[in-house]
């Protein structure tokens, strides 16, 4: 039997590998630390498999090219960091309203502005949800290891295709630049979802039809379904509308096609929660150290567990509520001034104390710091 493909790999390169496994055939990007290796890896890998890589003139152009490539039928991705993510936002909104599947990787660094190019941060968590203007619902996932980065990137593509929507992968500088041993999935090992194509003839085709699951079948340009794609709020035929009875359903569709399926999208890692009285709630880099802190505290007899959010958006309200039902206290660890903690506070009943462990100096929250916090709140 062939040896499993164990490899020492960087997080950013794992992202490229996951994307290609998921079917990425188009990448457009603009170099920015700490995401650049994703562009470089794509530049090396894509032409070898008949894919396309292009370095655009800026991030606005990159996401534009990615969206257009997706409309022509290619699974597409871009990767950036804070300043570039900010530049992409207008066009990310275009992807939301046009319901165009694509994947945007944000390898987070400290901000605002140029901030801390080489230092870790999780301060774009809210931006991934609310960044572009207008009403919509976002999907964002956050890996916490190199291995996770492969599987979460595959999941991000599957979600984008399944829900016809942009999906953001919130990596951070630590995961992006860390090297770990990983095993690449064998072909066929992880299921791949491809967008649903229309089966009706072109003259019966309604590009933004209200289907049972609210996701409309999407042909590629060139397949004979000549339809209109616009960033103007549109009717089910894709033409702009000012009619209230067409605007409401369109915006509800953007929201409900995702929020009605939160259970399907939610992915958590739950450890030592069965009898836990205190829970660490975290994501990305902090999830690693939280789990470590919880294991250490368990050995000392503290009833503490760890909940890791792989899916950050839509926020897993129901799951968190159930998991924390028996907790007295939670500690939300984040590398920012407090973002996801507001969601946790919104979801949990008032009698559960919500504490925070925060850091925004470009360094990670260590297990020791998280243990100290635990001691404080106990």
């Amino acid at each position, binding site marked *: 039997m062939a040896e499993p493909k164990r490899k020492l790999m960087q997080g950013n390169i794992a992202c490229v590998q996951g994307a290609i496994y998921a079917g990425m055939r*188009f990448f*457009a990007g603009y170099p920015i630390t700490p995401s650049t290796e994703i562009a470089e890896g794509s530049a090396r890998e894509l*032409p*070898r498999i*008949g894919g*396309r890589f*292009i370095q*655009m*003139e*800026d991030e*606005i*152009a*990159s996401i*534009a*090219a*990615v*969206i*257009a*490539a997706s*409309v*022509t*039928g*290619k699974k*597409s991705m871009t990767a950036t960091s804070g300043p570039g993510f900010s530049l992409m936002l*207008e*066009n990310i909104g*275009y992807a939301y309203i046009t319901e165009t599947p694509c994947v945007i990787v944000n390898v987070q660094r400290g901000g605002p502005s140029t901030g801390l190019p080489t230092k870790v941060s999780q301060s774009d968590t809210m931006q991934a949800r609310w960044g572009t203007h207008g009403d919509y619902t976002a999907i964002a996932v956050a890996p916490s290891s190199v291995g996770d980065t492969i599987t979460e990137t595959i999941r991000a593509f599957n979600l984008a295709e399944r829900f016809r929507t942009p999906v953001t992968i919130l990596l951070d500088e630590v995961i992006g630049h860390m090297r770990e041993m990983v095993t690449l999935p064998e072909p066929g090992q992880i299921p791949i979802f491809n967008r649903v194509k229309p089966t009706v003839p072109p003259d019966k085709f309604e590009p933004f039809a209200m289907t049972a699951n609210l996701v409309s079948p999407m042909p*590629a*340009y*060139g*397949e*004979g379904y*000549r*339809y*209109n*794609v*616009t*960033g*103007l709020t549109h009717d089910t*035929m894709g*033409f*702009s509308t000012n009619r209230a009875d067409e605007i409401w359903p369109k915006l509800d569709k953007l929201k409900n096609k995702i929020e009605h399926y939160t259970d399907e999208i939610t992915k958590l890692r739950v450890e030592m929660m069965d009898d836990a009285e205190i829970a660490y709630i975290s994501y990305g880099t902090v999830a690693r150290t939280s789990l470590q802190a919880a294991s250490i505290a368990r050995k000392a007899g503290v009833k503490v567990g760890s909940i890791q959010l792989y899916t950050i958006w839509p926020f897993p309200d129901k799951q968190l509520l159930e998991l924390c039902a028996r907790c007295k206290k939670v500690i939300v660890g984040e590398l920012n001034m407090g973002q996801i903690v507001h969601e946790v506070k919104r979801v949990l009943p008032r009698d559960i104390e919500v504490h925070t462990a925060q850091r925004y100096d470009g360094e990670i929250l260590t297990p020791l710091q998280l243990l100290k916090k635990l001691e404080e709140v106990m």
Partner: protein
Amino acid sequence: MAATTEKQRSDAILTYLRPRKKFPSVWCAGCGNGIVMSALVRAIDNLKLDKNEVIMVSGIGCTSRMPVYLDFNSLHTTHGRALAFATGAKFAQPKMKVIVVTGDGDSLAIGGNHFIHACRRNIDITCILINNHIYGMTGGQGSPTTPAGSFSTTTPFGNSEKAFDPCALAQAAGATFVARHTVHHAPQLEKIIMQAIEHRGFSLVEAISNCHTYYGRLNKSGDAVAMIKSFKERAVPVTKAKDMPAEELVGKFVVGNLYENNVKTEFCDEYQKMVDMLAARK
């Protein structure tokens, strides 16, 4: 075979309009956009392009509404970004004909960077830039092609800035087909659009057009008819302009085929060569 009658011809042209899209358009009566749209459709009809293989991309503006009315794969994008979207579409599906329709503000102000880089790559896109020297959609503000001294709602005392020459800009940036005409010259416009589409590489057609509603009113240039007539007087064929002193060309539009280069390689072709080379190595 009997020659096509004018009636048959216009019936054929009508098939390019979106059957289910309600007309009238958003354009003011007499807007030059309609003339350019007609020239474009005729050019495409002459070339017998398969509608399914045409992607028409635009940004935001009056001009940029054009693809919405036409029965192709239409991508009406964000302000200024048409060429960036078009680059993605063309590069992802090189067999498609990608045509961009854009305004002077869309392509040269907010989209200026994408414009020069699309030219530089020499990617096989035809860009039809309708230059009405003003921002129409937002109500008559100054644009990068508003002539020095001209009036707009943001240059109420005359424009202190200088205007771009889009054709010179495109040529300098690396475009390999550059032509200009005016909406007074519909047949000529049709011909250069045909040539631009047939050209392999980045082609720019600048169509000088009238926004009588704003530019005309603010600059006392008259109504649509008066403005279009003035284009006839101000158009100087490039062959003639060559021998004219610069000061005589002030306020004129040099029209015709301004530049063509069939030697420079096209971007998607070059990339494909690399893909083929890597495949052969395996």
